[in-house]
């Protein structure tokens, strides 16, 4: 009886197998995109582009870092035309490996120098500010500097996500401005103050809403993300530190065209569309990110990018966070 079952299963499977091998060998002529930005956020823009130009897009979604690792592994065999990444670090790694093609000046000029590759081969599309998310009910005096977070009043009240690349990018920038010893000292004091560790920014925001902690270091748009996920308003606000504090750094999500692209013209068109005033306005409204082009516009309730007291940070340094990771391991946070 069991044997009969096995036979039937085998037969059914081999039939479907032969059928599918046929389908698998089809190759499409569309533009191939590797997107580290999630489908819900980016696909409205991509669909609009297809509607406007008639160019078909094949999108492979994944984690930015995993896709970057995949691109590095594929090397010159990559089928990808365009890589859209969540953060500058993954773009920097592809750029350092020499896999990106140089971009036209016309495209690069849409955004400020500090939001693009120093090798002119990737460009930032949207901005994301590091902030402290806090509970307006439980935090009365807002901290003006990250240094205050090590004070006793914040004991066991602060959340960070040390394994998250956005936190590691912030620490990398901090090392750049203060030096390693000072950063180790700050992290150790933070740890001694019983800082709470999370895996993701969204978990921190949810934990503030749930009353587990009062304040956390996150990117600004997680407020909307968590609120949307929970289907209700949450009791969490975004706050900025005093001008120049590295706690306010700006990171970018961006894109670059692969050298292996068989249709770099269409890829460039898409990049131009993403940087167009129209798309940039939609990013502000739909994903609550900062536009790198429309500098005076901002997501609802936040100051515009031009007024954020952000420190100057070299984004190309974010391509290698290994020193930062080693430091976080040394302190015992990851």
């Amino acid at each position: 009886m069991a044997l009969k079952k096995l036979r039937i299963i085998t037969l059914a499977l081999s039939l479907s197998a032969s059928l599918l091998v046929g389908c698998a060998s089809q190759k499409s002529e569309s533009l191939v995109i590797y997107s580290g930005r999630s489908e819900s956020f980016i696909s409205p823009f991509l669909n609009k582009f297809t509607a406007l130009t008639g160019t078909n897009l094949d999108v492979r979604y994944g984690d930015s870092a995993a896709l970057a690792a995949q691109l590095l592994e594929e090397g010159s065999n990559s089928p990808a035309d365009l890589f859209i990444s969540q953060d500058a670090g993954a773009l920097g790694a592809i750029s350092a490996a020499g896999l990106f093609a140089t971009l036209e000046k016309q495209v690069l000029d849409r955004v400020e120098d500090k939001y693009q590759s120093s090798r002119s081969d990737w460009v930032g599309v949207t901005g994301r500010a590091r902030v402290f998310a806090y509970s307006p009910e439980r935090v009365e005096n807002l901290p003006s500097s990250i240094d205050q977070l090590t004070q006793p009043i914040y004991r066991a009240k602060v959340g960070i996500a040390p394994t998250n690349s956005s936190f590691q990018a912030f620490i990398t920038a901090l090392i750049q401005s203060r030096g390693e010893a000072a950063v180790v000292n700050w992290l150790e004091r933070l740890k001694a103050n019983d800082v709470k560790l999370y895996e993701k920014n969204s978990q921190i925001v949810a934990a503030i809403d749930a009353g587990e902690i009062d304040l956390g270091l996150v990117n600004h748009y997680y407020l909307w993300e968590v609120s949307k996920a929970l289907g209700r308003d949450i009791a969490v606000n975004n706050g900025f530190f005093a001008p120049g504090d590295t706690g306010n750094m700006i990171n970018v999500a961006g894109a670059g065209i692969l050298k292996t692209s068989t249709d770099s013209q269409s890829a460039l068109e898409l990049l131009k569309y993403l940087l167009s005033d129209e798309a940039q306005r939609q990013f502000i409204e739909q994903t609550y990110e900062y536009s790198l082009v429309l500098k005076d516009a901002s997501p609802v309730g936040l100051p515009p990018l031009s007024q954020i007291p952000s420190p100057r940070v070299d984004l190309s340094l974010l391509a290698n966070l290994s020193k930062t990771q080693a430091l976080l391991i040394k302190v015992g946070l990851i």
Partner: protein
Amino acid sequence: MATTLGLTIAVTALSTLIGLALAWTLFNVDLSLKSTLQALVILPVAIPSYVFTYSWISLIPGFKGLWAALFVLVLATTPYITLTTLAALRRSDWSTYEVAQTLGLSGFQIFVRITWPQIKNSVAAGSLLSALYVLSDFGAISLLGVDTLTRAIENIYRGSFDRSSASILALILVAISALVIRLEERSRHKLRIIKSSSRIIKRAKASDKFKVKVIALLGIGLYLALGLVIPLFQLLSIFLANSTSINYSLLFQASLSTLIAACLGALIALALALPVGVLSAQGSRLGRVSDKAILIVHALPGIVMGLALVSFGSSIGWLYQSLLLLSFAYALLFMAKAVGSVRSSFDRVPKNLIEISATLGQRKSATFRRVVVPLATPGLLSGTLLVLLAAMKELPATLMLKPIGFETLATQMWSYSSIFRFNEAAPYALLLVLIAAIPTFLINRPDKSDGIGDDQI
């Protein structure tokens, strides 16, 4: 490193105990709906560990750390032992059990002296899978904030794209898994099963004492509640708390894609595992070496295996990111789950039956077909089932190797849960478990499999 080892040992020990107890109870106690229960206790394996973990986190605020990881991983890996043990129990020879009973041995003595030697190899194969699962798990431990080698490897990829140092850590993982595999192998002894004919394989009389039944039901109920009902119920309530409209055609498509890719993968895995299992059971050197080689890579995290296949596949244009390569990847990733079952099923085929068949003038191929395969089939099926269930929820390699636009339930689930929308991910998770239930129930079908030995051959 110490965390990795400690967690692996603790999880394996606990899940082996629980899995063994579950299988033993389900086999020996006369429960109504037994076959349904037998299938249900396997199902927790179909829930991806990050979804499983998330549902517990959302239920218990502050659910974190080593103890939480131990809890989650024990629940998630117990089915490996339950399934392999059940398959072995079904093949046990109960005539010896009756002899032991007439000789006045107690239930416990019978277990230790009669049953245990017959099922030991299968239990060990299940425990090995559990250990390798813990070594390679990322979903649960990352959400719970436990530092293991696998998490360190992922972090290196994420932070610095430094493939060489990640590879060195992966090598340490391989070394640890080699150690675990060696341990399992040492515990395995050559079986000597002598039976005059398969008709003597008798089914034990199931216990029908009321007290025993109540205890058994309570135990099984507790496991099912923690491992299946509570997480699924929690997912459902997350969905209902903020329900969005479900895209049914996408849901259907994803289910179909999941089934096709996973079935193909399981089939290829079975085809690849068969010769290895047969050779290894016969004690051939080639068989033993390849058996171990397959197991060793099983402890590698998905991202490492995925990238290895990217590096191999991307140079072959027509194959790269095709369904064929994806199924092949599933087979390579999860073949280890089938190899152990295949080997122990062939081990369990009484050698004298093969000899008898030969003296009756049957050719080797006929003997294999008419004697060996029927006897080994329950084990083969449960091995294939494990591959199928694992492939259905696989994520990192799927994201890298799937054809573009080919969405599986796992990739859809990821695309929502990665942006914290567990409410939208919930329907996919629930459907994944439902679909996984189909082959699980088929293989644990009540009608014939319980009466094994009486009329099958």
